[in-house]
């Protein structure tokens, strides 16, 4: 009779009933004082206990199937199976970066080009997204070298009059690099809000996987295709009104990928436009960056709130900046004037990237 067969459970149930009946009906006859009577009482009681215990075990085992057979229970089953390749394999590796066009970045007063700006499409293997963007490669760029990266998230990518536009910001970077105020750096410009409806950068539940794109696909693509650094200490995010929330959200969520974030002086209680919460109050709470700072440990991040006017003023971001505790640092900077308003911001990012948080000395077991 099998361990999991209903017949066994039935048999045990009947045994329990019979033993219980024997005990209750024969109570008087077993009640004497002789050693034989006492032994008999103990025997029927133990038999009842054992059959109830067995019944419980068999019923629980039948419902959860811990042991499938007697051999399984006593461990006499032997022999493993064979590993078989079941499915899948290599797929043709698509080019992760498709270059659609290139133009030189010129810096006034410098004869040589300050680098080049490429119109690209980034193919995210995990998110499945193909995202258009611009890629700035600095003067003297060459493979075989690892560069720091600034991911610029803005709706103004192709707006040449905005300081966050690819052409002007790339120009500012080239100028700062030319005068030696910034190490050669790669800039990737991507539009904020990968879908029309959503301005946040989290994975939309069951929908567009924006966080997967920014935090896994982009680093992978840039590391394999254009020699981006593999260390979080060399990765920065920069957002304007449209992409600032994204920058902070990504930095807080993926501090193992990014260590620097720049955003305007907003309140960050939710993404601009609609959010990814999808009707879930809990997901909506996570959309409030103040809530995140209050409820999760401080991350090793350098955050800069950049905006026009007074360098020391934090404006609406004061609440968020006040929640920053070590190792998270928050600072404020005023935008410059003239041709490159973001030049001071680039300088600050350069300094933050150059000085990664001091690493603790390696423990003994790690040496």
């Amino acid at each position, binding site marked *: 009779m099998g361990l999991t067969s209903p017949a066994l459970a039935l048999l045990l149930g009947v045994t329990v009933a019979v033993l219980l009946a024997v005990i209750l009906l024969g109570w008087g006859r077993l009640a004497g004082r002789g050693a034989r009577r006492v032994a008999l009482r103990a025997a029927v*009681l133990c038999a*009842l206990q054992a059959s*109830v215990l067995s019944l419980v075990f068999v019923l629980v085992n039948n419902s959860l199937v811990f042991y499938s057979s007697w051999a*399984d229970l006593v461990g006499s089953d032997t022999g493993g199976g064979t590993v078989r390749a079941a499915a*899948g394999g290599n797929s043709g590796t698509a080019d992760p970066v498709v270059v659609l066009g290139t133009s030189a970045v010129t810096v006034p007063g410098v004869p040589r080009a300050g680098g080049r700006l490429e119109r690209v499409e980034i193919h995210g293997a995990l998110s499945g997204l193909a995202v258009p963007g611009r890629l700035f490669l600095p003067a003297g760029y060459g493979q075989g070298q690892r560069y720091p990266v600034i991911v610029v998230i803005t709706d103004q990518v192709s707006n040449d009059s905005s300081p966050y536009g690819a052409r002007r910001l790339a120009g500012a970077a080239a100028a700062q690099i030319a005068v030696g105020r910034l190490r050669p750096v790669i800039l990737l410009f991507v539009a904020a809000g990968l879908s029309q409806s959503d301005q946040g950068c989290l994975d939309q539940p*069951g929908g567009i996987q924006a966080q997967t794109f920014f935090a896994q696909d982009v680093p992978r693509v840039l590391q394999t295709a254009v020699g981006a650094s593999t260390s979080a200490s060399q990765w920065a995010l920069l957002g304007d009104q449209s992409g600032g929330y994204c920058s902070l959200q990504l930095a807080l969520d993926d501090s193992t990928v990014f260590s620097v974030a720049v955003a305007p002086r907003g309140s960050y209680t939710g993404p601009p436009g609609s959010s990814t919460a999808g009707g*879930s109050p809990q997901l909506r709470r996570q959309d409030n960056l103040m809530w995140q700072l209050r409820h999760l440990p401080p991350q*090793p991040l350098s955050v800069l709130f950049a905006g026009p006017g007074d360098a020391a003023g934090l404006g609406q971001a004061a609440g968020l900046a006040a929640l920053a505790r070590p190792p998270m640092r928050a600072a404020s900077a005023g935008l410059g004037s003239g041709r490159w308003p973001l030049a001071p911001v680039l300088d600050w990012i350069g300094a933050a990237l150059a000085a990664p948080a001091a690493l603790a000395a390696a423990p003994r077991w*790690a040496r």
Partner: protein
Amino acid sequence: MGLDSGWFEILMIVAAVASVAGVVAAWPRITGRRATHLAARLGLIAGSQLLVIAAFLVCLNGYFGFYGSWTQLLGGASPPTVAAAATRPGAAGGGGGGRARPLVIDMTEPGPVPGGQVLPAEAPRYAAAAGLRPRGVAARGGPAAAPLGPGHPGPGLGGLSKRVSSSAAVVGRLLLVSMTGQRTGITARGDYVYLPPQYFQRAYAHARFPVVLALTGYPGASWSIVKRLALPSEAVRLVAAGRMPPAVYVMMNVSVVMPRDTECTNIPAGPQVESFFAQDVPRAIEQSFRVQHLASAWGLIGYSTGGYCAAKLAMLNPYQFRSAVSLAGYYVALRDNTTGNLYGGSFGYRHENDLGWRLAHLPAPPVSLLVTSSRVGEKTYPGTRAFLRLIHPPMRGYSLILAQGGHNFGSWQRELPQSLGWLGQRLTRPVPDQPPQVLLHG
């Protein structure tokens, strides 16, 4: 008294035996025919029966290590929610940015030896050091034993006994560790790290090792991976047989916020358990041991709930874990009494935690996954078959199906040599400083 302490087991057995004796002794006094006497008889038998069943359950729990303490069983400890993480003592000030150390070694002991004979016989000394209740034997307290309060860094890496005895180079080292997530603030206690003998050998003095992260089922105890699954001793055997490279084994309880079953999920506005295993644990291990950083050096293995977690962690983080083994795992997003609401009431988010749904609706991740089950005796078999059919490039699926075997350590032990060997073929090998001596023939 601790749920899993030996004294409690003994007490329960004594009570059960005494109750039977009590019924035998009281028997003659309630021989009357009145209804009250009949009720008394039934009551006595039922009471004694309950005690016997309770003793049986306590012993079963002791053997399988389902629940390590009363609070793990019943809850009620300060809930380790994200809120608790932010306000933990020690977080406010002090050096090092005011952060708890990512990994603390609470105890160190010799590990398995190649002969197969092996481990410290029982868990109690480890458990005692973890601030858990000792089981079976009173805690003797090793050199580094000290109970850990929340947030208390405890004896750290520097507090270990200075000598690493030569035995380590033969049998390796088994360490009892606590880890605190720098990203999530979750603290996991009572887990084990096994460093292979090669870690202490001169030839490998500067070598970096691959890592296998092993996860229990729910409910479970990390000690079960060491003792019941016998993962370290099997690994030593396979390394000796040349079937797998020496690796560092990190053996963890899959439920980091007992008694809740989190299914390794980033719970909306709750514990971020997926990030803990995918970001915090790798960083803590990389900062504490000589291990490799690339995804090709990180493998996962888990049984039951741990199998689901291993598959999920790899599929969601293919650039952290390249390969995973799911022993009798499942591939759907569970929701039951022990999990509570894991998905913030969002169908979309629940879909994202359903591995079959992911394969049908999202690009397949570039990982290799070995799934195991049994044709007879495993409820997971049909689900496993269905999941295998969904795998497509660039993901690779492999299966190991037993003819017969239930959802227990016996089956998983039979699957282990093949599974570890499969994992071993996919891990980057540690490179010794000096190449092994090769005899050249003219």
